[in-house]
């Protein structure tokens, strides 16, 4: 085993302290009973209680989740199709434009994406609300999905697909029975990425939402502009908790399946 030098230990410790301390502070102060966020006045869970009675926050949370589920599902379907076209599509008219449109949204400042979509929706007379946010989120997150999925498709052994086709399956069957199970982890992580991006988005949602639909980030942003509030700390704590549980579970599951795959490979070797 390698010994780590004091320099590396120090830089890792300081680095991770920098990454995590602000969030730890946020979580601790969500249990502060004082309304003044910076003065500690004893342990209390009252801000959580108030949060769950705040109709406006609950409504916004519900809208956000609906938008995230629908848009990330659409984005996954469209993004997987786009990845397939990019990696397996061969030559077709306007291929350069297509790949440009896939990569451009990744580097586009959110203010520009938001502004341009809003101007489109107004131009075609579409009322702003849940639908327009879903359209906007689907568009930018499908590009992230297609990047994730196409990186998996590139490293994929094409002869497996060809074998299925030779053995008499239709292209759709070959995709469903051979390709999809193999690229599934990438498709799932693409969906999760799209879901988080949608959940998290403030700027594009602010441009494309109307008075009838407010998402949680918009609500949080207008609240924190006025300063720090313990209710927002409580809300943040809940969101951090959900993400942490999700990410840790996902990494444990993938670790487990990697171990299983290794075992299978070893068993196969022995069988030879």
């Amino acid at each position: 085993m390698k010994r780590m030098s004091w320099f590396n230990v120090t830089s890792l410790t300081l680095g991770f302290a920098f990454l995590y301390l602000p969030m730890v502070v946020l979580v601790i102060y969500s249990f502060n009973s004082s309304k003044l966020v910076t003065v500690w006045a004893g342990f209390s869970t009252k801000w959580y209680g108030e949060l769950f009675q705040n109709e406006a926050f609950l409504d916004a949370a519900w809208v956000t989740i609906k938008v995230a589920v629908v848009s990330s599902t659409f984005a996954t379907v469209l993004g997987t199709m786009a990845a397939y076209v990019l990696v397996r599509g061969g030559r077709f008219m306007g291929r350069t434009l297509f790949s440009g449109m896939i990569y451009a949204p990744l580097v586009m400042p959110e203010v520009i994406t938001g502004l341009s979509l809003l101007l489109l929706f107004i131009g075609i007379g579409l009322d702003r609300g849940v639908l327009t946010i879903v359209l906007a989120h689907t568009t930018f997150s499908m590009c992230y999905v297609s990047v994730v999925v196409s990186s998996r498709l590139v490293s994929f052994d094409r002869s497996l697909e060809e074998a299925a086709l030779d053995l008499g399956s239709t292209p759709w069957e070959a995709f469903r029975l051979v390709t999809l199970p193999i690229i599934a982890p990438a498709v799932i992580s693409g969906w999760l990425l799209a879901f988080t991006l949608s959940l998290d988005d403030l700027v594009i949602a602010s441009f494309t939402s109307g008075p009838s639909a407010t998402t949680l980030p918009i609500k949080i942003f207008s609240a924190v502009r006025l300063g720090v509030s313990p209710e927002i700390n409580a809300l943040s704590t809940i969101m951090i908790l959900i993400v942490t549980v999700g990410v840790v579970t996902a990494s444990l599951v993938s670790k487990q399946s990697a171990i299983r795959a290794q075992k299978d490979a070893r068993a196969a070797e022995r069988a030879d």
Partner: protein
Amino acid sequence: MRRTALIAVPYLWLMVLFLAPFLIVLKISLSDAALAIPPYTPTFKDGIGALIRELDFENFVFLTEDDLYWKAYLSSFRIAFISTVLTLLVGYPIAYGMAKAPDEWRATLMMLVILPFWTSFLIRVYAWMGILSNEGLLNQLLLWLGLTSEPLVILNTTTAVYIGIVYTYLPFMILPIYAALDRLDASLDEAAQDLGCTRMQAFWLVTIPLSKNGIVAGSFLVFIPALGEFVIPSLLGGSGTLMIGKVLWEEFFNNRDWPVASAVAVILLLLLIIPIVLFQRNQQKQQEAEQ
């Protein structure tokens, strides 16, 4: 037939919801503001003839005349550049430490770097508001240690914006550098030391040049989004912090001047093209080198 449909669906989606909006922004940036709904003229209803006759570069001329916009572009560039350098200085030692860590820790360290990325951006920026304010935790600590006699004003200054950008974009810097350092053959470093380099020299002459690709990739991944950043300057910065993303937002939502907001967007995009093209070239070179 199936293939055509497979190509057409995502293609049309992006044409309608990505390319078309873009052309609309370009068109409106050439229009005049008007007291109407929508608040610009000419509209598409006026016909092609009117569109061609009435479009002009007035808004762009206006942007060059009012020095607010110049200053905002320049200061966005400066802020993005300085924060990128700071992120590199903070991120490199962390990536280096990760690459030198024992194998069984690596997966955990990797997860710890990625975890904040999944946590809401808005919340991570907000977390600093409570720390940096005048009565905030940092000032309480400094006062208690006796390092200052009165609270430092950090929140609502450009310093706070630097801290915010470094904090939120740190994972984007760490991951590509870590990937480059991880591939590095440790024996090269040993060879340099055997041949008489000090550890410092070996680091500067061997490790840094060999991790150049990671440094460049990470720097672009921080610089490009930082240039158009809106959330960080509006929550942590004050009225003295000019950033173009914030100017665009205010032009649109507060002044309701759509043509000027569109012109600001067009110029921001033109400025971004250079770093984006450089970034793509770097990525391509890297891919070719790997093959």
